[in-house]
């Protein structure tokens, strides 16, 4: 094989790697997962047990600071703050899930469609997307609230719709690079249909991007719900929501700062938790990091 020896080296050698081992959990996933799990636990616990009846005006003093009887104090309407945090966790999770669910279920297929149909259809999808993207999420939600009345349901659907373009965009950009790869040509040559390629190749390869987007959007949705409740357009009075609590605390910020700090801290912590969780999940799901 003398003719082979004169060939120039092109690619660097790549040593064979050890077979896959269990993937180590990364710190982001661990910390984020713990926070997320804690919030889920709070929400679940609230269904079976709360220290005081939820949203009930109690025969006690208002504006109590945290004490043995009321762990996180009471608000101006003599309601137990810890109970509200527990019940509010439900709203927070529910809003996040529904908003991100609506956005991902609509946005991801749209993004893949736009990437796989380079003609006018793909253009149409993306231009429509740009129009929606240019529209502030909160403004859309306020519009919806004005049209359909302020409620948690309207708020989370509006936030979901407003988040669709973010998913469509990120999915399209990821899908475009997948479509340019040789393994998609290989799949076509193997006889896979466009739908099969979308399902077996494009979707798994953009999943990492979508997960990160979902965690970021989840955090944004929580904030948006809080903002809407704060503006009095989301969760109505009498129902627990962290944003609602923050809204009600603003008039007594000076006298009882803990009433704002506690729900504010809960919102900040959950946003942080979901962001970390998403980052960690993406890394953990990447088979390339297996066995390293």
């Amino acid at each position, binding site marked *: 094989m003398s003719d082979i020896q004169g060939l120039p080296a092109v690619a660097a050698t790549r040593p064979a790697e050890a077979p896959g081992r269990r993937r180590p959990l990364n710190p982001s996933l661990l910390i984020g997962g713990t926070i997320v799990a804690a919030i889920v636990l709070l929400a679940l616990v609230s269904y079976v047990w709360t220290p005081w009846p939820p949203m009930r005006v109690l025969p006690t003093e208002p504006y109590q600071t945290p004490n043995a009887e009321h762990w996180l104090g009471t608000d101006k309407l003599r309601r137990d703050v810890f109970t509200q945090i527990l019940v509010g966790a439900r709203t927070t999770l529910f809003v996040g899930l529904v908003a991100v669910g609506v956005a991902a279920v609509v946005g991801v297929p749209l993004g893949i469609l736009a990437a796989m149909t380079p003609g006018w259809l793909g253009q149409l999808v993306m231009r429509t997307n740009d129009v929606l993207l240019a529209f502030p999420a909160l403004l859309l939600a306020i519009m919806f609230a004005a049209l359909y009345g302020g409620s948690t349901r309207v708020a989370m659907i509006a936030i979901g719709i407003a988040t669709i373009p973010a998913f469509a965009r990120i999915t399209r950009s990821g899908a475009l690079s997948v479509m340019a790869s*040789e393994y998609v040509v290989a799949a076509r040559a193997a*006889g896979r249909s466009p739908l099969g390629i979308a399902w077996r190749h494009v979707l798994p390869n953009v999943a990492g991007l979508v997960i990160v987007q979902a965690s970021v959007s989840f955090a944004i949705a929580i904030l948006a719900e809080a903002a809407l409740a704060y503006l009095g357009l989301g969760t109505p009075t009498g129902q627990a929501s962290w944003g609602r609590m923050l809204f009600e605390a603003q008039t007594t910020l000076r006298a009882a700062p803990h009433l704002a700090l506690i729900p504010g801290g809960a919102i900040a912590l959950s946003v942080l938790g979901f962001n970390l969780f998403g980052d960690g999940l993406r890394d953990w799901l990447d088979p390339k990091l297996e066995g390293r």
Partner: protein
Amino acid sequence: MSETPSVELRNVTRDFRRRRTSLTSPAPVVRAVDDVSLTVARGERIGIVGESGSGKSTLLRLICGLDRPTSGEVYVEGRPVHDQPPWRLGWLRATLQLVFQDPMSSLDPRMRVRDIVAEPLVAQGRRSGNRERVVELLERVGLSAEAADRYPHQFSGGQRQRISVARALAPDPDILVADEPVSALDVSVRAQVLNLIDEVVEGFDLTLVFVSHDLSVVRHVCDRVAVMRRGQLVEVAPTEQLFAAPEHPYTRSLLAAVPDLQQALAGRTAEDLAAGVARRER
């Protein structure tokens, strides 16, 4: 001709429209493949060589039904490919399979080797017996059965090309099309992969269409060579004849650019060889 040729190209032309550069003039057109006619007999091993941009990859995509010619006809096993929509080319997917250039990008990083190799089978609606078939194929290309449960990144470039070959063999094709299958590989593993291709073409009685920019590689596996330049076939000849007595001046210049052992032993220095490489890559 009594027997149907494996691949037949009749006056195939493929134009690509470039992005317009001015409002008034029409979009410039690039003729990637220019009036190419070529017949590949059953069981033949043909090499298509040319420098990058010569249109050999476009020609290959046309043969595989992954692209349509602007004009001309493409037949595989006597059946038309050029005017068929993708969903009518199921038979082609079972008859003709591909091995790609880049071992990094031709295997889906998120799929296990088992699913990669079985992909043509699954895509063509075969549901049972795939597990056994995958193991059989992996062993045929010199990998162990355990490879099935791993991901592509856990293999070296050469091993990945073996996986690629296994996938190509899965639907039991008659024609193997290889697009620069060793160009991205380290010199030390090139020979192994070339030998493997040689071996499976022999063993499975395949027709081989081998695209490369590298004549020395083509010489190793092909019995006929087609030289492409700027979209046209400038010379088609049996390998030995082409190497011994190249007719077209372009073929001669390509041959002169191939660094070989004789030249190296004849006292040429590393710089000379590097210059040869640089010249060829240009």
